[in-house]
């Protein structure tokens, strides 16, 4: 067996727990990351990066960005974190507002990542993208009927709509992006319409909404492209079977583009290893790093020339709402209050 019960690595990490690494003398051969992401892609990227650079990558993952931000804010100059990675761009904005970042200062990143996906003050950069798409029952709905996210509040969809809870950041960001273009009244009208159209109380994750279309509980669902793609290439035939009658639409193609959730990262103000952090960010936006995102989690790359797997190519080249990226964080609190008011749990 290749794994002895107590591998050396594990013993070391257990021993290291006793001591705060920030207190030890730091060599620039380590990189400490706080991240909200917990995907295999990220683990793989860290491994490849370690092998390439001989920089040791340590990771703490905290699922909720607000908690991660709280930890770094409280740790102040004592923080162990060199790099913060979060799964939603609104959270990067929050971290930037809290003064947690320093400018990245990488010419390479500026060159390969389009300006829309980067902070104007160079405090963070986007790394990977997921789109909020509309899944629908092809036998009951025409793709044209749902060409815009705004259409989902129309009376014709009463009792047919499926969506997860607005406790989740995906929907909060979506609402924020609509708030940014349609204002308070616009968002309130839309969320009220959506709440009135729901086939059932918002619940479960995105995959559950897709399953609910398959089981006939509803006809239309707001879901993430990433879950859709994952089911489509699933090794489990039962999961692929679910999608038999289900199509997807990237909404708002004739106007602002489909709403996207951007994962991104920034270097902390009190980073002890800022150079390692910069190297890692550069690696993540390199073709190699980007390919790990697209092939492992089936997210869209931020750089235009990164290879995209077959399944994403089958979706065509959708237009994304890139203009909203930088305002989502700012609009989210207001959007959440409006979601509360509209009764979209």
């Amino acid at each position, binding site marked *: 067996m290749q794994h002895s019960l107590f591998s050396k690595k594990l013993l070391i990490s257990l021993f290291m727990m006793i001591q*705060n690494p920030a207190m030890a003398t730091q060599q620039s051969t380590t990189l400490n990351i706080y991240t909200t992401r917990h995907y295999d892609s990220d683990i793989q990227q860290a491994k490849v990066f370690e092998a390439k650079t001989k920089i040791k990558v340590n990771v703490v993952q905290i699922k909720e960005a607000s908690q991660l931000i709280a930890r770094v804010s409280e740790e102040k100059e004592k923080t162990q974190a060199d790099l913060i990675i979060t799964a939603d761009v609104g959270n990067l904005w929050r971290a930037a507002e809290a003064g947690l970042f320093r400018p990245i200062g990488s010419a390479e990143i500026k060159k390969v990542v389009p300006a829309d996906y980067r902070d104007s003050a160079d405090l963070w950069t986007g790394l990977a993208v997921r789109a909020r798409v509309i899944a629908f029952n092809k036998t009951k709905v025409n793709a044209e009927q749902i060409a815009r996210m705004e259409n989902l509040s129309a009376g014709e969809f009463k009792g047919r709509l499926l969506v997860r809870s607005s406790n989740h950041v995906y929907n909060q960001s979506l609402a924020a992006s609509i708030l940014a273009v349609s204002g308070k009244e616009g968002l309130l009208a839309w969320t009220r319409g959506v709440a009135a159209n729901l086939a059932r109380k918002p619940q479960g994750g995105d995959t559950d909404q897709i399953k609910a279309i398959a089981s006939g509980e509803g006809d239309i669902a707001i879901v993430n492209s990433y879950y859709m793609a994952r089911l489509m290439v699933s090794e489990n035939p039962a999961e692929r079977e679910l999608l038999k009658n289900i199509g997807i639409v990237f909404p708002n193609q004739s106007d602002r583009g489909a709403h996207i959730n951007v994962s991104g990262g920034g270097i902390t103000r009190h980073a002890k290893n800022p150079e390692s952090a910069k190297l890692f960010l550069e690696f993540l936006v390199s073709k190699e790093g980007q390919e790990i995102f697209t092939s492992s989690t089936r997210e869209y790359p931020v750089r235009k020339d990164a290879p995209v797997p077959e399944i994403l190519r089958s979706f065509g080249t959708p237009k994304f709402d890139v203009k909203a990226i930088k305002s989502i964080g700012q609009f989210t609190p207001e959007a959440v209050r409006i979601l509360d008011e509209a009764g979209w749990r």
Partner: protein
Amino acid sequence: MRFWTRLPLFILVLAFLAPIISLVVEAGNSFWRESIPLRAARLVDYSVNSVLLVTGSLLGATIFGLSSAWLCARREFTGRWVLLWGSILPLAVPGYLAAYSWVDFLIDAGFPGGQLRNLPFACLIFSVCLSPYVFLPAYAALVQLPGSLLESARLLGLNGLRLFLAVELPLIRSSLVAGVLMAGLEVLADFGTVDFMAVDTWTTAIYRTWFGLGDRGTASLLAVVLFAVSALVLFRDSRSRSKRSLAGSTRKTAPLRRSKRSLLSILPILLPAATPGVLGCLMPVSILSTRVLRNWSSLEIWTTIHEPILTTLFVAAAAGLTVVSIALVLVWTIRTESNPAIRFFARVSSLGYALPGGVLGLGLLIFLAPLYLTGTLVGLLYGYSVRFATIGTSSIEARWQSIPTLYESQARLLGCSAAGAFFRVTLPLLQRSILCAFVLTTIDVIKELPATMLLRPFNVETLAIRTYNLASDERLAETAPSSLAMVLLCAAGVFAAQKLGAFSVGEDGNRGEKNDRKTSLT
């Protein structure tokens, strides 16, 4: 002298209060900055849901736990020990895990998902998973009731349900209340299960305010309110109980013999009694095992979970040791201290349980960060101690109370110092309850999620975290190996605790007689 013996207590109380004070300060800041939380427009709905959820869950847990306790204590039937274990083992299955496995299983079986996630179903899950909190004290109390008393009641014409309601229930009530309260606190502070079950409670309000509105201050304020309510209930309970304390008769009386019954005749009670075992243990475990076996080759099971298993064990054992040491100091103070104010403060330790783990984590973070302690084992253990000290204290205290003070005072008369009397007389007598406290804390730490997530050091992944991450990535089927490992570890703990007599489940009537004979011989 007085001051020096009290010093450890002062330090501990301060350590316990620190994160709570941090939260209050955090809450206060927001109070002055803006005018409070009416922004969360649905606060009323949330509170109503919380009340309904707690009521429903406790009602269910009481029905399940009591019927099983009564059956096991009063009736002899085929498979009695199965029911006994089935009533304890749900302790090994955290609520969120039961919820994951049920919902996943039922949706796969073709149930429309829309009918599965709601308040009644959430209540059912909590009642099943928390029923051991009722079963254990109820069973222990029932088997200790003197048989003579019940025989007299029978001679006076009371039987069956009337006997139970009129005589037994009032007598075991006080030992029940503590268990029910603990269960209630657990429901109130839960987020993982209710979030998954699509029920919005007061904790939803807390986390929605924090994560959605990005408003830490108001979230802390909401948490402090929840905390204050729980604390009030806890203190009222401990006061009223101390007044009521019936001081069980010191003379050992023979318990009632269990009467033999056929399974069919006890069926109406057996059904609710067996529910926790079936729904809270058997079903989740078989669902998980099937999943693990089905994907045996493709999941590379050992590689993915062997590190989390060892990490979990290491962290849980370290936490167990810490909590036991702290509990000893606290109980010693409660036991020896005459000043009521000081005794009151020693009780503060039980309050960590009354806060949602994530919020307690925030309080700890604020306090630990300036000390370089976030992301260290010390910080993590500190967090566990605040959260779980009460588990250690209560199991040690229960035993300690049954040791007559006479023992120590006689040791003192024979020339022992206070410390000497403690170490040479009391400590050996406490041995088992200390081991129990250790095991019970360990089980809870294995299941703990939010505080671990927030405070953990680099590269540390426990089974609970692994399970949660996979589940939140909507890969429920893949959670099976880590979930199952977690349940099995906890079950091993429950088993060990039972063997150590943690639940006083071994001291049943029939064995009691043998012990009596032994004592009468010596």
